[in-house]
């Protein structure tokens, strides 16, 4: 597997401009002769599909949702970063670049991150032009807030529904193209495999989720914008249907999978309330601006919060990190919460949370001010837990939230398969080992609106695409394989439901490859996962048939891929014998429990190549060079 990142030459400031000039252009009149498949209609996919169609390409667009507007991007709450420096507080493209490289714990590609920071400016302009109703000041100008511990206010937001508003903007741009007939939309259509012809990505095999029809779709290039894989943990903040199938199937056909072990655990989610729990709900991180995090000093303390005097409380983040305190970065806040719960100091009925307490802020600022800031979040919390945060402290616990790993892509966002592009959370590109708050929305839209439309043109302009149709041997072979796989799932007729197996898989991954990872645990997981996968393939029960809407069958296909993916996740975590960002190897920590990176051995992206289901994949590396931001140890003390 060759890993040529194709990073252009020149100074970091000039790379993207120069590169765009060097890219081959497709003549305007010829664009409609080229077709592109876009799988996924979240921020990345919808913005990409709309922009490609505006340029004149023929676009075919797929989503398993009933409407593009349902994509998981809709759930993002907090905001989107951009280096506009509207607040005159010293922000700049360079600072956003610097913060992102550092926040990613020096495991991202500098050139990509710089380009992302540059483009952040255009994204805000574009969204405003589309009618995204960002929050504004009384002056009528756009409002910003500081987010996720950033020292400047660069986050744009639309109440607590930023993802919704950005997605609706992209969805509307896409809807306009669908109305114009330049994009053909296939909703309720799930991609189940990739088609390569002569080594190039030329199509996909899909299943119509209403009729069950399995068929192929062909084009000149394929783009995956299919989101992240946090649901490998079963419980996460992701929407229920988020899954790894699209990128996993591409991996099996030869696309390199980079850094699967970089997963982000978000510190402020509502703890699990029972075994029936179906997903975890994120509470916006902004709550940490005024809430104080604590647990009782004594393990096993069963008193209610008011009964515990100040002197018997441990405000552990304030204690360990006096300068950042409750605003310590996500990975640190998460790990410390786990530590407290593991020590038996957890709170709530199941002893599985820590307090996020607003008592002091309420005393200082009053209910009205706190209500203005967090009213809707407090309501949401009360609706879910039945507890009123104005009266009792919230309970929170970390939960899987975002996956920095994904398919490896070069500077063009092309994977190791020619003609296969990967955008948004599905690729591995810009966040290194840890993503900063409000940067995923930015990356998804940068990829879709402003990068892919140029770089894919360069590929199409060079291509001589042989005509293929659904009778082609390669196409028929992949279609048949897919049908057989789904037939097999329906015929096992065992004793266990898909969810029960997924839950069990999730627990293994969470226990051994969650917030803390170590050699022995990962090896144990690598023994247990194949056994459970085997049980899945022999004992799962999928009722119903394949020729109609069958939600159990949809899930079974996705979980089958999670079983394979989980193993790669653990393998990658085992091979990376250092701690960095969201990946914490217990063997690699300082005396006071902080992550210890090993730049000498691991300043690279690990890229896995599939070699067969029961064979070990091959690990390749893309070395990372830091010319501008010199690797240093993060310190938040």
């Amino acid at each position, binding site marked *: 597997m060759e890993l040529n990142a194709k990073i252009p030459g020149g100074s970091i400031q000039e790379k993207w401009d120069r590169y765009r000039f060097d890219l081959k252009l497709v003549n305007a009149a010829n664009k409609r002769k080229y077709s592109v498949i876009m799988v996924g209609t979240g921020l990345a996919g919808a913005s990409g599909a709309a922009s490609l169609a505006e340029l004149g390409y023929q676009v075919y667009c797929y989503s398993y949702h009933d409407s593009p507007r349902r994509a998981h991007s*809709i759930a993002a709450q907090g905001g989107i970063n951009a280096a506009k420096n509207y607040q005159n507080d010293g922000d700049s493209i360079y600072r956003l670049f610097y913060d992102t490289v550092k926040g990613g714990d020096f495991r991202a590609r500098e050139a990509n991150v710089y380009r992302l920071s540059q483009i952040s400016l255009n994204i805000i302009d574009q969204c405003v032009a589309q009618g995204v109703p960002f929050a504004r000041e009384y002056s009528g100008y756009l409002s910003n807030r500081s987010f996720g511990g950033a020292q400047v206010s660069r986050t744009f937001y639309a109440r607590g529904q930023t993802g919704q508003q950005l997605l609706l903007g992209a969805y509307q741009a896409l809807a306009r193209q669908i109305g114009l007939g330049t994009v053909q939309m296939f909703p309720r259509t799930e991609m189940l495999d990739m088609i390569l012809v002569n080594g190039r990505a030329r199509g996909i095999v899909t299943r119509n989720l209403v009729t069950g029809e399995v068929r192929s779709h062909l084009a000149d290039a394929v783009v995956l914008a299919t989101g992240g894989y946090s649901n490998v943990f079963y419980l996460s903040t992701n929407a229920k249907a988020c899954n790894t199938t699209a990128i996993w199937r591409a991996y099996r056909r030869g696309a390199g999978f980079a850094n699967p072990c970089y997963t982000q655990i978000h510190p402020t989610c509502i703890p699990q309330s029972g075994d*029936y*729990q179906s997903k975890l709900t994120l509470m916006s991180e902004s709550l940490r601006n005024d809430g104080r995090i604590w647990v009782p000093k004594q393990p096993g303390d069963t008193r209610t919060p008011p009964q515990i005097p100040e002197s018997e409380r441990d405000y552990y983040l304030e204690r360990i990190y006096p300068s950042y305190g409750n605003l310590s970065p996500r990975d640190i806040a998460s790990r410390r919460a786990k530590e407290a719960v593991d020590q038996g100091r957890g709170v709530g009925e199941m002893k599985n949370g820590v307090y996020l307490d607003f008592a002091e802020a309420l005393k200082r600022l009053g209910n009205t001010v706190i209500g203005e800031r967090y009213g809707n979040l407090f309501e949401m919390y009360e609706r879910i837990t039945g507890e009123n945060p104005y009266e009792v402290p919230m309970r929170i616990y970390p939960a899987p939230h975002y996956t920095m790993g994904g398919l490896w892509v070069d500077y063009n966002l092309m994977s190791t398969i020619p003609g296969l592009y990967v955008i948004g959370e599905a690729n591995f590109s810009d966040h290194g080992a840890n993503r900063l708050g409000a940067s995923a929305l930015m990356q998804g839209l940068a990829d879709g609106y402003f990068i892919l439309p140029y770089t894919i043109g360069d590929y199409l302009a060079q291509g001589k695409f042989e005509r293929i149709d659904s009778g082609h041997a390669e196409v028929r072979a992949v279609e048949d394989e897919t049908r057989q796989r789904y037939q097999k799932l329906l015929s096992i007729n065992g004793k266990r439901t898909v969810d029960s197996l997924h839950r069990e898989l999730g627990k293994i991954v969470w226990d051994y490859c969650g917030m803390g990872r170590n050699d022995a645990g990962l090896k144990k997981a690598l023994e247990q996962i194949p056994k459970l996968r085997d049980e899945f393939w022999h004992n799962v029960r999928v009722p119903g048939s394949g020729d109609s809407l069958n939600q159990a069958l949809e899930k079974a296909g996705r979980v089958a891929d999670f079983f394979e993916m989980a193993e790669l996740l653990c393998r990658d975590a085992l091979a990376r014998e250092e701690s960095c960002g969201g990946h914490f190897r217990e063997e690699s920590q300082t005396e006071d429990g902080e992550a210890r990176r090993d730049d000498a051995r691991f300043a690279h992206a690990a890229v896995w190549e599939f070699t067969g289901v029961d064979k070990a994949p091959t690990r390749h590396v893309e070395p990372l060079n830091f010319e501008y931001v010199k690797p240093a140890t993060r310190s938040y003390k």
Partner: protein
Amino acid sequence: MLINLTLHVWRQKGPKDNGRFVTYPALQINTHMSFLEMLDVVNEQLMEKGEEPIAFEHDCREGICGSCGVMINGLPHGPNPMTATCQLHMRYFKDGDEIWIEPWRAKAFPVLRDLVVDRSAFDRIIQSGGFISANTGNAPEANAMPIPKQIADRSMDAAVCIGCGACVAACPNASAMLFTSAKVTHLGLLPQGQPERYERVQRMIARMDQEGFGNCSNHGSCEAACPVGIKVDFIARLNRDLLKAKLCGAGTPSAV
């Protein structure tokens, strides 16, 4: 706390089949569960017996994606105001309750299976004009045009619609006016939305009619059912825009 319930659930194999209510016990339901988690539990039990689970739509389970939505005892999204089905928790039910669960009922939303309906008519309304035509790259600098906060806020009030379809299900005429007016208002209030304002409203209404939604007769049940608080005032605003467009001719400067 644990409670026992009796569910009467609409089961329908496919769009062309006849449906009927089937009764299932839901036993030992923890009141901390969400309504959908309760259905998950019932489905797990059905599948363990080899029966097909009840199909229902859901995804985010946070009240934002608009996927979920069923009639619960005759009310869209159930008894709690401003709450989508996925956000409804079982503590609002009592031990021994009987619960009737049905899909949205509207000609424009055909049932696909059990509780799942086809809401693609909403997408086609948006495709007909629910956008601002700003190609990627067209945009001027974002702060070049200040927008009064009150206007931006009001536009946001309309923009929060999640497209779930509860308004249609609640309406005795199965009208899509609340949904359509929310988009017309969101875009029509903003300066960027002005050039296409009158054209937009006419096209969206034409499409709405074509999809088989009913007329609005000012019942107001849509507002009561909306999980995110979209107001019927927006319908009045839409009607004013529509009238203006018809009187002055859409797209002409006089309409502005």
